[in-house]
């Protein structure tokens, strides 16, 4: 694959250059409004529910979301939608309705900060160091992946892509902190939609609608089922993903998704920037409404690729060996199929915006956790607010430089990508166990929280290593020797969460709990939550959450 997939016209280049100019201009403009730590790290806690909600979703849309899930849709069919629906919507609603009030009322700056208030310094340190370390590594991996995509798709030099995109992100986050990151994420969210939506619209026109698309997929891939969400999940061998519904519901829907959406500070930080508790509750609910629609611009292009592309795409290894196009190229191929000059530039801008919003999310979250959860408690505790803002700014640069270093490391040792992504997943599921028990169970003790988190993380790493050393262990970890990587991740998350919860409960029952007065604002039953009884129905978060939940159920039934 030495040839690039797409050629850009001058108008396409103008659109991309204009985008870079706009995000930098926003950073420069917002610098004057970023004076205090509250401004830099939490955007002044002034965001409306809409801005916080869209930013919350845009930070997640980053990394390899668009390209990766379009590719997954081509490979696994509509099953990839589970990561947007059951793998996101219930967790986002739970965050908004149940957990957000505690994060917000406790006035914490971060998720590790909440652990400090609830369980003490040792839990905070474990969470902060793991999160900070993994975040910059992930950011570097995403950066490398983006540069690789731009090289394959546009023929751009890989070093040029890495440095230009990362320095742009560093500049606007350095200047305006979270405020700038959030402003740009909302802009990026709009561009992602407007750049990617056209593929689905023209694709459906070409196939004659949904039914026409399904018919063509059946013609192109006889005997395979790419268009049903649940009906093929009764057996590991009946679907292209090799997964069972138990793994999807309990591993993905109950653990991985709740872990990511409710405890990953990368996304939670956006909601902490909301202007009041009601906005903080509404933001994830608004985000969930849009999340439910994202398959229209990510999954549908993958399915349309199955229907209309003349050639069959293949896995990355086979693509390299044979020169065929890989699954990962489905979105650029669809862009090239439908988008002429101008529209192509908008589509590429959507891809770059997706990468940059994710990178900015990582970097701004890293700067906050480093400054508030590592630097202030362990290195210098009595400095001025201005000093911490300064540390946060330089930490942004440091984070980007480490990310660039990781990108180059991955370039040399591709296998690092697999290890780091697995490492990141080790932490999320147990962290959810610790946080949710901390919020909902007043009897959970500091020792229980720390040892539960540690046991969950260590057991997750242990199960991963066990399967690496002895592949036959898959039958125990994932309940089937036929389980694929994704299925293994689901079950590993489920076990590590259960171990975290079990250890937390056992250790808590053997140790002394905190006095109730120290749990005020942190734990359900010890905290007075603001009443919403005086609000009209349409302004209550529960009303909109019910609507989203209803649509979620209907969509799952329609595509059953």
């Amino acid at each position, binding site marked *: 694959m030495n040839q690039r997939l797409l050629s850009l*016209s001058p108008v396409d280049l103008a*659109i991309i250059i204009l985008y870079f100019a706009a995000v930098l201009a926003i950073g420069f403009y917002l610098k004057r409004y970023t004076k205090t730590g509250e401004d830099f790290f939490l955007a002044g806690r002034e965001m409306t529910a809409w801005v916080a909600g869209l930013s919350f979703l845009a930070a997640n849309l980053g990394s390899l979301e668009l390209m990766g899930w379009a590719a997954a849709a081509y490979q696994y069919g509509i099953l990839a939608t589970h990561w947007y629906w059951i793998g996101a919507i219930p967790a986002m609603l739970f965050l908004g309705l149940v957990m957000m009030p505690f994060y917000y009322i406790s006035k914490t700056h971060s998720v590790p900060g909440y652990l400090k208030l609830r369980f003490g310094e040792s839990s905070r340190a474990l969470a902060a160091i793991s999160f900070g370390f993994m975040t910059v590594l992930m950011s570097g991996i995403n950066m490398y992946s983006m540069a690789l995509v731009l090289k394959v798709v546009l023929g751009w030099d890989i070093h040029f892509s890495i440095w230009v995109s990362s320095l742009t992100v560093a500049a606007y986050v350095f200047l305006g902190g979270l405020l700038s990151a959030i*402003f740009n994420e909302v802009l990026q969210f709009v561009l992602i939609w407007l750049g990617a939506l*056209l593929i689905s619209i023209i694709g459906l*026109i070409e196939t004659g609608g949904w039914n026409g698309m399904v018919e063509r997929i059946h013609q192109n891939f006889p005997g395979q089922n790419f268009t049903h969400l649940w009906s093929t999940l009764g057996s590991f061998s009946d679907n292209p993903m090799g997964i069972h519904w138990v793994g999807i519901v309990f591993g993905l829907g109950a653990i991985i998704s709740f872990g990511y959406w409710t405890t990953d500070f990368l996304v939670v930080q956006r909601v902490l920037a909301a202007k009041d508790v009601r906005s903080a509750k509404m933001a994830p609910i608004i985000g969930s409404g849009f999340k439910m629609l994202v398959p229209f611009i990510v999954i549908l292009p993958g399915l349309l690729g199955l229907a209309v592309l003349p050639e069959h795409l293949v896995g990355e290894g086979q693509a390299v060996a044979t020169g065929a196009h890989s699954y990962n190229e489905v979105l650029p191929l669809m862009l*090239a199929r439908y988008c*002429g000059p101008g*529209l192509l530039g*908008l589509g590429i801008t959507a891809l770059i915006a997706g990468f940059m919003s994710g990178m900015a999310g990582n970097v701004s979250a890293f700067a906050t956790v480093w400054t508030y959860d590592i630097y202030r408690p362990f290195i210098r505790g009595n400095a001025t607010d201005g000093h911490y803002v300064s540390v946060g700014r330089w930490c942004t640069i440091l984070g980007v430089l480490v990310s660039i270093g990781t990108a180059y490391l991955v370039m040399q040792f591709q296998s690092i990508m697999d290890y780091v992504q697995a490492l990141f997943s080790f932490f999320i599921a147990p962290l959810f166990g610790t946080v949710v028990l901390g919020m909902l169970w007043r009897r959970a003790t500091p020792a229980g929280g720390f040892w539960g988190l540690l046991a969950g993380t260590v057991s997750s790493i242990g199960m991963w290593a066990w399967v690496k050393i002895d592949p036959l262990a898959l039958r125990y970890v994932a309940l089937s020797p036929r389980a694929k990587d994704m299925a293994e991740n689901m079950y590993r998350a489920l076990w590590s969460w259960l171990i975290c919860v079990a250890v937390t409960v056992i250790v808590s029952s053997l140790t002394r709990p905190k006095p109730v007065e120290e749990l005020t604002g942190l734990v359900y039953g010890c905290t007075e939550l603001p009443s919403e009884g005086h609000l009209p129905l349409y302004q209550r978060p529960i009303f909109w959450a019910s609507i989203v939940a209803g649509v979620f159920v209907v969509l799952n039934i329609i595509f059953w």
Partner: protein
Amino acid sequence: MHRPGMLSIWFFIGALLLAYGVLILGAGLYELAVPPEHPVVHADLHAGIWWGALLIALGSFYSVRFAPGRNKK
């Protein structure tokens, strides 16, 4: 979000969409006048023209609605 004198994010978005709309509509009209040698699938839909027009409409609305001086809350 509503500090005195601060421009709304929606103004930035509107301005960028307006600029993009002009560029994309222009490219679409040029393609209509000078059809390319290798047209994209469904080039007959002239997506550049109506998508560009849509961006201009959205961009104009947000640029005017959230223009400096009107965003006082």
